[in-house]
């Protein structure tokens, strides 16, 4: 059945068009046979700037539908139990999982606090010297403790050696002399790894005060 154009009285239009509205929104303008050079949005019609032959309202509804669908989908994503929103809620309400996640940060920060004044040396022990499995943990310990200690320093290598990750620390095999430790005001040592087996243990050793620092480190404390 062929479609016929039926003029709609202006009163029946449910939207009021602004004066500069594009002609395709105005059915009367669209059907004006007297227009030779048509204007669209105040500009001359071109290939890119032309009338939409279909009803513009359908496109408008489609656009709204897409935007609302996206918004509803995003809200639904956040309502899922595994969503980021739920993770935030878990942290805020101090769930068991969130406490466990925070524990490792707090432990490192507490150990950094216990080092007192002076700088700290990070040593590797046992399997931690070579085992690539601990690279990630080693990176974490180094980054976090360096952050927590500042303006004091955590030494893992000479200052001219590039450290970008745990593997670089392993490669450095840093073993400074007693004199170097004194020159750099190192007063405690973190030992990462375990000579015996298992675990990614971190121990803190406070070095004896400078006037009797000739001997071996004593006064072990901390660790996990």
């Amino acid at each position, binding site marked *: 059945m062929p479609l016929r154009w039926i003029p709609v009285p202006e009163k029946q239009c449910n*939207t009021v068009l602004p004066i500069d509205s594009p002609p395709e929104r105005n059915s009367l303008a669209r059907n004006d046979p007297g227009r030779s050079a048509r204007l669209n949005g105040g500009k001359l019609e071109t290939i890119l700037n032309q009338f939409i032959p279909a009803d*513009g309202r359908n496109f408008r509804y489609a*656009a709204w539908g897409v935007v609302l669908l*996206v918004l509803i989908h995003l809200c639904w*994503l956040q309502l899922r139990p595994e969503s*980021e929103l739920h993770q935030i809620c878990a*942290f805020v309400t101090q769930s068991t999982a969130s406490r466990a996640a925070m524990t490792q940060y707090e432990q490192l920060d507490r150990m950094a606090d216990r080092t007192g004044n002076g700088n700290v040396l990070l040593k590797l022990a046992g399997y931690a010297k070579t085992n690539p499995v601990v690279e990630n943990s080693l*990176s974490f310990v180094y980054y976090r403790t360096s952050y927590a200690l500042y303006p004091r320093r955590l030494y893992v290598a000479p200052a001219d050696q590039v450290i970008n990750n745990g593997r670089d620390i392993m490669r450095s095999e840093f073993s400074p002399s007693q004199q170097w430790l004194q020159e750099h005001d190192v007063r405690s040592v973190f030992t990462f790894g375990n000579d015996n087996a298992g675990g990614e243990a971190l121990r803190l050793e406070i070095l004896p005060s400078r006037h009797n620092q000739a001997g071996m480190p004593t006064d072990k404390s901390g660790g996990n």
Partner: protein
Amino acid sequence: MAFLTCCLFLLLIVLVGYTLLSAIHPSSRITIIQLIGLGPAVGAGITGLLLFWASLIGFAPSRKMLAIIGVLTLAGLLVMKKMNRLARIKILATDWEKGDGWMVVPLVVTLAGLAMIAIGALSTPLVEWDAFAIWGFKAKVLAHEALRPTPACFHDLTLSYSHLDYPLMIPFLTAGAYAAMGTVDDQTGKLVSVFLDVLIVPVVYLGLRWKLRRLSAACLSAIPVMLPVMFRYGGVGCADLPLAMFYAGSIFYVARWIDQQQWPDLILAILFSTFVAFTKNEGLILALANGAVMLGFGLWGGRRRTWVGAAAFFTGLLVMDAAWLIWSRSLPRTHEDYGSKLLSSALVTHLPRLKEIIPAMLVQIAEFQVWGLLWIMAGVLALLGWRALARPYVLALWILLGMQLMVYALAFSVTPWDLTVLMPMTVDRLLLHTVPAVIFLAGWHWAEVGTGQRIAESALR
């Protein structure tokens, strides 16, 4: 007490921003959204730069320094008030249109999302690796020492993991908060991070409102807030969302300049592009891309004003970023050093890696649990409102988005890291930078579908 003083620091940022807006738009009327979005964004960028410049001449951020900035700002405001050049706030930009009352729904969704991000961020200290290893660490250094003489940390290669050559906008703003608080409290200091991250919403809304009516702009502005990736990185203390926020401002004003050639738009485009360049290394490339697009469209249009504007853009960017470019030249580069690699022959030899990178980026884009249907929505709206391609500012934004994605893909191609490890860790963060461009494109195409076209554009000026 620390929380209160940190809030005072943020108030100072807002005041600095309002003063600058008044200087850029003398005697004009600004909308509420410009006051709460544009002003603080400009204020944050300028405050970060001021603290950097002061540190370069030997003054680390301190309460005295902040008091001086505050006094100068108030003096500037008083002078402008006397000269009747102060920007006035108008409550209603234009009459409300039918259906605009529904914008309360997306507004509630937005505010709820932002509130959750803020609560989550402020309930923990810095725990994101990049946040404490790179940005938080540098904030501590800058709060403790001025940049003159250069702190030893910036030349210590054992700290190379902290990316010694990264720009310092976020560390300086955080150091400013520490100075205001009188202590290094990273949990309260995250208020600065939350403040910067939240600003992305009003800045995006501002860009959308240019072409869309209130309800449409509010719905689209709610989308970035509800993105899972926003919850993942919002308020964590990293520089990615602040970069996206500043970038949103820069591309919006670049587009407005291309469309209208108003000098205030050019000034804001320069300012935001400078902030982008001072926030992350990739920001410098994005800022230069902004200038290149302005120049290209200026030459294409053939109008003298537009290419003079492009020349002014590059000059302004260079002048404002010169101190950083000069000072950072001596800093050791990490093995990544994307800037040098992208300008060397390594780029050509690594091009085959794009065969691996581009599919990985496409897979990420299609990751519904990270992006929802954002990218699909942008595509559909671009199709429905395809006539918007006739607008130079829309074309410009497509080009900017294409350049941004291309630069990120090329950066991945020259990375020294194992791509299979690096890409899953970083690609969502990099694509987060593109969200403002994607949302603007969706909105500006939507405006051409027929509905939501602004009746009076001048309302936002």
